[in-house]
């Protein structure tokens, strides 16, 4: 909601195993930014925001 550029999906891993395989998920929550950058485990909002900026090279 905070940015027009960001879309976010919550995905039930047990129903979409192809994504679990694609992103090599071994524990949840497992977050993926732009199909490439993975963050494993719960993060604070700020850590998440930093990871997003890092993923887009900022």
């Amino acid at each position, binding site marked *: 909601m905070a940015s027009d550029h960001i*879309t976010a999906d919550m995905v039930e*891993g047990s129903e979409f195993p192809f994504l679990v395989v694609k992103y090599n998920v071994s524990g949840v929550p497992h977050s993926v*930014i732009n199909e490439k950058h993975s963050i494993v485990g719960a993060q604070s909002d700020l850590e998440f925001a930093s990871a997003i900026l890092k993923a887009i090279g900022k």
Partner: protein
Amino acid sequence: MGLLKEKDREKVKKVFEEIEKDVKIVMFTQETECQQCEMTRKLLEEISGLSDKLSLEVHDFVSEAGLAKNYGVDKIPAIVLIGERDYGLHFYGLPSGFEINVLIGDIIDVGKRNPELSKEVTAELAKVDRPVHIQVLVSPT
């Protein structure tokens, strides 16, 4: 028999009093519903009935493929929450256990038109200037 227990329905109805503006819940399923699609639809029918600010639209992923594409939906069951605009917020799969709390929390954030992020986080996110797609893989608890 509903998917939510009676006491949970009462709790959710109470927290939904925080909702200030209309929230449209859009769901994509298909004519021959898989079990998860049917259960998701029934859950949303129950949840949307707990506040008069909530409305539910159910669409067919196959026959309304164009609409699904407009919402950025690529798999089902899919739930999209719409406030004054489409925020690109999707839930894929049947929300169960703790995930129902996440869905309810997001419905309230959309209903308040406020994701309740700190100033610091909001400032960081303002620097985002290109598409960012976040997928959070979860499992039922």
